[in-house]
């Protein structure tokens, strides 16, 4: 596709439920990032993949958060036992080269609401 695609656009989960958020990066992009954006705040870095390798997961807030990119293209962010504080927009971004100082293209995000 022409841009980064994320699905679903909206997700409502009951507290304690597991959720999976999908990201389709731009074809050929080596780098893939996940960010969390709370209401009225800037995006916060969660994790980074270079192809299929997860090179940085320093931003994941707890061990309930897990991300994978098994074939170096599509990525899934999974949140287990969701809590209300997990409510946010989850953004995926990709870039053509390795990460630092290159343009990152963002998807529209998945808005997660935990009730």
């Amino acid at each position, binding site marked *: 596709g022409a841009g*980064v695609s994320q699905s679903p656009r909206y997700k409502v989960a009951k507290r304690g439920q597991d959720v999976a958020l999908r990201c389709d990066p731009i074809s050929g992009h080596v780098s893939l*990032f996940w*960010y969390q954006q709370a209401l*009225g*705040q*800037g*995006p*916060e*870095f*969660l994790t*980074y993949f270079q192809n299929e390798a997860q*090179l*940085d997961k*320093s*931003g994941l807030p707890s061990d309930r958060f897990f991300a994978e990119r098994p074939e170096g293209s599509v990525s899934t962010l999974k949140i287990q036992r969701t809590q209300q504080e997990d409510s946010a927009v989850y*953004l995926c*971004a990709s870039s053509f080269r390795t*990460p*630092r*100082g290159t*343009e*990152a*293209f*963002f*998807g*529209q*995000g998945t808005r997660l609401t935990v009730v």
Partner: protein
Amino acid sequence: QQQVKQSPQSLIVQKGGISIINCAYENTAFDYFPWYQQFPGKGPALLIAIRPDVSEKKEGRFTISFNKSAKQFSLHIMDSQPGDSATYFCAAWPAWGGADGLTFGKGTHLIIHP
């Protein structure tokens, strides 16, 4: 610890005026400074970016001014238009160390009055 401080939080400018948003940072390892524009319900989109080897970069109506010694950079939007109404984020990326993702400011909600 907030590594990139952005101000103001909100800004109202008349059509045709100049919008100015400021950011300050502390980490001297930062060496790439992009500005992103975000409309409601959309992801951030890159507007313009600068590296610290230049003091100014201009693209159309958008200009970044960079002051390395003060560790500050700003976005100027000339001839502001109602279509520029959006949330703007400054960000920074270190050349080494730290996380592999961008560090964002908290954002500025810009409203351009017609």
